[in-house]
């Protein structure tokens, strides 16, 4: 959502706050109910204040937008506020992106891109050069975003007799769209008009969308000017080929190699690709709800924290509402004790393999784990996201024994080194992000043990990707002895190395139990240091391809 920026809506707004990044200084000022920013190049005096007029995001990450005095064109403020940590960080360090990518902090980014989804019924209205005359119906995600146009509905329902006829007969009010009464695919599009990777069907559609906004209305079976981009689906091949030519990294920045979505906020891509979707009833609101019936503040807080899930949908109930026969003997299917995390449907079929807003999140493509997804597409499988201490060969063997899944041919290191240890040293930045987050995930810690995680997370404090440093910091804080560990993940070079060195000394001298024995898969010597030869070999083989997750 987008809001008018005030000291109340921009949570980190404090008069006098100063920031430096990319050779420029920024100073935030408050005048009454308005916020301003002055900017200067290093060593120069501050220029005229620019008002912070809007702020995008509300409960996780907030990005402020500045006036430009050029129509309704906005300029991106180069810092974002991380709500949970109460810290400001350069926007480029709140996304998983290579350190050498210069964030463009562009003028017009909100008008040309963000407002497509962060407002209700936005119209970008490009004028010329980098000038925009944007319009919105409402800044927040309001009623009509999901229920379609309301004019007729409001007009008809002035009549109390009509309303009571509907109340007392449970008839559908045909004057408004109710996603709960749509088919699964149509209901999914209601959310997926934003929560999907979409593209324009053609240039005319793009121009029309820009000038007049989306023509899609909730309830329609198609996004009209746009389509949901599914790399593995046979549809819209001409448009997808065009994307491949004009934006070669488009798919890599959003999808795993097998077409599974890997960024958060695009959940419909996962839902559409799930086997459950083929039944025609499965949609976002099978598990989520936007209007909880229990409106007590405590329940609303819980609902907001639990991804707006319906009651009991954080449990197996989400799957068992359809897969009813599983409930009687869940262990027969999971091969794990019924009350363990290994018997929770989500953990195996919706593992945390998507990433965005500085954390891993559950994939919304319901799938079954296999070792091949890891060897072929690099995606950490559900088994090793929990059993961090086990090798990929162990996973392949168990899956063959339990589910008769043929094991892939695995190299020697996958027989000997824990999959998580390998990925966090040798993997690309996306794999490292998922494993670094996973090392702070309580179910994985309980299954895999905590003692061996310290050196890996401390090592990741110096990862070249800022997002991975953030994750290492937060995961370290979940481990005994490090709950109050402070770390400036946005720092550079020597400072990072010093903080990581201090953390290592603390672990070796104060936290580590001298009697602990590390199994060989951990790649650790008895004194807690990495086995030098193996570690350096994996480090030298690290997949350094740039990863930019376009969440």
């Amino acid at each position: 959502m987008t809001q008018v920026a005030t000291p109340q809506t921009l949570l980190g707004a404090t008069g006098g706050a100063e920031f430096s990044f990319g050779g420029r200084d920024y100073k935030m000022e408050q005048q009454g109910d308005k916020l301003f920013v002055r900017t200067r190049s290093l060593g120069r005096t501050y220029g005229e204040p620019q008002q912070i007029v809007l702020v995008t995001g509300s409960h996780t990450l907030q990005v402020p937008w500045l006036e430009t005095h050029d129509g309704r064109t906005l300029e991106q403020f180069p810092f974002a506020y991380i709500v949970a940590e109460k810290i400001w960080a350069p926007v480029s360090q709140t996304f998983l992106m290579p350190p050498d990518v210069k964030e463009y902090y562009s003028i017009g980014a909100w008008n040309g891109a963000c407002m497509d989804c962060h407002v209700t019924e936005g119209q970008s209205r490009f004028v010329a050069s980098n000038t925009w005359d944007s319009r919105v119906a409402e800044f927040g995600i309001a009623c009509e975003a999901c229920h379609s146009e309301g004019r007729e509905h409001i007009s008809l329902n002035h009549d109390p007799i009509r309303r009571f006829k509907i109340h007392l007969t449970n008839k559908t009010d045909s004057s408004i769209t109710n996603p709960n009464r749509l088919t699964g695919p149509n209901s999914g599009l209601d959310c997926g008009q934003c929560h999907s990777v979409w593209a324009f069907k053609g240039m005319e559609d793009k121009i029309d969308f820009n000038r007049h906004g989306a023509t899609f209305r909730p309830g329609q079976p198609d996004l009209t000017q746009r389509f949901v981009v599914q790399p593995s689906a046979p549809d819209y091949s001409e448009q997808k080929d065009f994307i491949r030519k004009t934006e070669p990294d488009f798919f890599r920045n959003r999808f795993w190699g097998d077409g599974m979505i890997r960024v958060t906020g695009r959940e419909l891509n996962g839902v559409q690709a799930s086997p459950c979707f083929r039944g025609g009833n499965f949609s976002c609101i099978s598990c989520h709800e936007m209007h909880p019936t229990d409106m007590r503040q405590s329940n609303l807080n819980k609902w907001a924290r639990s991804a707006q899930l319906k009651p009991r949908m954080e449990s197996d109930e989400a799957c068992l509402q359809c897969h009813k026969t599983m409930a009687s003997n869940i262990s027969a299917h999971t091969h794990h004790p019924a009350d363990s995390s290994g018997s929770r449907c989500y953990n195996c079929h919706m593992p945390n393999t998507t990433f965005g807003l500085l954390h891993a999140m559950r994939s919304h493509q319901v799938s079954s784990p296999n070792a091949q997804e890891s060897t072929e597409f690099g995606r950490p499988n559900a088994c090793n996201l929990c059993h961090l201490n086990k090798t990929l060969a162990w996973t392949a063997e168990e899956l063959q024994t339990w589910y008769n899944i043929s094991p892939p041919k695995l190299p020697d290191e996958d027989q000997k080194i824990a999959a998580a240890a390998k990925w966090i040293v040798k993997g690309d930045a996306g794999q490292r992000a998922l494993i670094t987050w996973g090392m702070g995930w309580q179910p994985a810690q309980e299954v895999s043990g905590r003692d061996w995680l310290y050196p890996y997370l401390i090592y990741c404090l110096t990862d070249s990707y800022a997002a991975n440093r953030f994750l290492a910091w937060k995961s370290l804080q979940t481990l005994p002895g490090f709950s109050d560990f402070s770390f400036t993940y946005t720092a550079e070079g020597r400072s990072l190395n010093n903080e990581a060195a201090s953390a290592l000394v603390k672990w070796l001298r104060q936290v580590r139990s001298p009697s602990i024995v590390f199994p060989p898969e951990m790649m650790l010597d008895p004194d807690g240091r990495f086995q030098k030869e193996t570690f350096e070999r994996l480090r030298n083989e690290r997949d350094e391809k740039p990863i930019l997750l376009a969440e």
Partner: protein
Amino acid sequence: MKPSDRNLKFGWWSLLVFLSLGGVLEILHGFKVGWYVDVGNDVRRLMFTLAHAHGTALALVNIAAGLTARSFKNFEMRRSISLSLIWAGVLFPVGFFLGGVVTYGGDPGLGIWMVPIAAILLFYAVIRIALDLSRFD
């Protein structure tokens, strides 16, 4: 029993009931009972408040009507006026109250339909009293 005596008795008992309801509503506020004060229950809150306010006001109207009849020598309310006032005093607050017990989103429950009937009865009684008093020497 004279009609005005009936209105006086009804008025005082009704005043007792609906002042007590006011006390109950204050207790619901005081203990922040979710069924009454939560954000999604604003229609219920409005309906109960209206039940309390109308019940109390109609009780006073019944008392005033009874006292009015007594204050004019040889004047007595028609039976239909007396019963209309009493039924208005019942249907108004009970309609609002039932309208608040079950709600449909932004709409009150079916009980709310008692309110227009009560309004007609009240309107009839008031206009009839006004006309009768105007003609009375």
